[in-house]
């Protein structure tokens, strides 16, 4: 009996994070910062677009943060973090060289192989560009495997635009079609103004039966963008989104992210619109 009751090594705890070192921090907007991190153990990470990490500042807490860098086998990760609560606030106070706890990657993510040979439509609203960027970079890195690539991005104002360098690059590439809009422009803004759905008119015609759309942004934007995509002739299972929930443990246990019988941290956060409709409590 005593042998069977021996204490197991505590290192097996799924709550024990790896040590992540912040290699670079950049202020994107007033509330959003970009972080590039690597792992102190020298081991890399393998992830899919749409997956996330649980990031810890001990004493403050842990928060789920989307990965925004190109997926695959990587030495490190990139994240765009909005200062919205205690943990993200504490992360904003950290500088390059500081370390944080990292667990993951968690979530289902999306394997872009499934969209090979298709037209791709990316629709990103606000901070939704962060998770969406992982999909976009993956598609552009393997550009030959897909047909037309269209990127639509909307933000509130020009000063809220994230990833300025990427936006410029995407705009200059001739193998992808990029459109950006802001709800409200300023004196220097010469681009589109209006909500993101106005961009649907500006993009080239895609072949509906052969298109996969990724619509990632706040729920209200998602609802209207989905209507546009459906109007284009896309079917519900050709439209993907990322659901935001309170993913506390990442392990499909704590229940905070649960929608009906689905744990978003494990079976999500990437769902097809068909699945979201089936869940009923998704959006």
């Amino acid at each position, binding site marked *: 009996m005593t042998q069977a009751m021996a204490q197991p090594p505590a290192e097996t705890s799924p709550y024990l994070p790896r040590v992540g070192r912040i290699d670079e921090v950049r202020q994107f907007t007033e509330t959003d910062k970009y972080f590039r991190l690597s792992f102190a153990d020298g081991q890399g990470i393998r992830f899919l677009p749409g997956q996330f990490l649980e990031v810890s500042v001990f*004493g*403050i*807490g842990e928060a789920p943060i989307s990965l925004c860098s190109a997926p695959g086998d990587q030495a490190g990760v990139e994240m765009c973090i909005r200062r919205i*609560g*205690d943990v993200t*606030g*504490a992360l904003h*106070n950290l500088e390059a060289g500081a370390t944080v706890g990292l667990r993951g990657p968690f979530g289902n993510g999306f394997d872009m192989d499934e969209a090979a040979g298709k037209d791709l439509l990316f629709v990103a609203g606000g901070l939704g560009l962060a998770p969406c960027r992982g999909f976009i970079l993956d598609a552009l890195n393997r550009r030959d495997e897909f047909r037309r690539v269209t990127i639509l991005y909307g933000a509130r104002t020009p000063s809220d635009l994230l990833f300025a360098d990427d936006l410029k690059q995407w705009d200059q590439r001739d193998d992808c079609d990029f459109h950006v809009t802001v709800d409200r422009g300023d004196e220097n803004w010469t681009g589109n103004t209006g909500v993101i759905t106005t961009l649907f008119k500006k993009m080239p015609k895609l072949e509906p039966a052969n298109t996969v759309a990724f619509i990632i942004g706040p729920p209200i934007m998602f609802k209207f963008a989905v209507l546009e995509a459906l109007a284009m002739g896309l079917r519900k299972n050709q439209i993907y989104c990322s659901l935001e929930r309170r993913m506390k443990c990442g392990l499909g246990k704590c229940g905070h992210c649960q929608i009906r019988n689905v744990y978003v941290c494990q079976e999500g956060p990437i769902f097809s619109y068909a699945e979201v409709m089936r869940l009923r409590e998704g959006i």
Partner: protein
Amino acid sequence: MAEKPKLKVSFHDFTSCEGCQLQFLNCEDELLDILGHVEIVQFREAIDDKSDEYDIAFIEGAFTRESDRARLEHIRKCAKVVIAFGACACTGGLNVLKNYRGVKEAMRTVYGDQADWYETSVALPVEAAIKVDYKIHGCPVPKQEILEVVKSVVAGRTPRIPDYPVCVECKLKENACLFHKGQYCLGPIARAGCGAWCPSYGGRCYACRGLISDPNNNAAKDVLEEFGLTVEDIMQEFRLFNGVYDVAQPPDNAHVKSC
């Protein structure tokens, strides 16, 4: 790691028994450690010195005199973080009971024919006069919550102040439910954080830590009525600490809801 400058803390009392400040002094085991992080610059219960330079102000007591408004506003101006400390500061506490009798009558009862000598008006939470950053509820405040707030402010995080009913803590203590023992209690709508103090020692919960944000008051009335209480009994129970929330039959202070 470089020594962080100590945060300056002050204590201020308004209409109260000052028992909550004594609770702070009751953190005997932790007090010296706390003083490693903070410097107390104003505390009538413990020190003579007084300074108007402070980061965190603990305000005990209800706001019951218009003349106190200026003092409260001054504290707000000096402090980075203002903490309503205890039931009187958070909800007006027991003081709100006088609002139901009418201030004039309350004055006559207490001061007799000298009632005119004193200034008082309806009892209100501190929030009725100034913005409050955090509330440490309770009569008296629980020690653990004082520590949680001090530690959190030092660490730079939001203190965890429960917004769920006392029933949660009572069940985790595996107390037999007072309703099962033929008594009643306000636990299902009262804010937890006390560790179900009273029910754990056989007492009823009077919701001294105020109500949770979204209490199901209708359910409370139904359940207590089924238990044989009249609406008047229920309101009496409810008003003891939470008259300030009484929307159905507000005390004689129309502006309470605006706070």
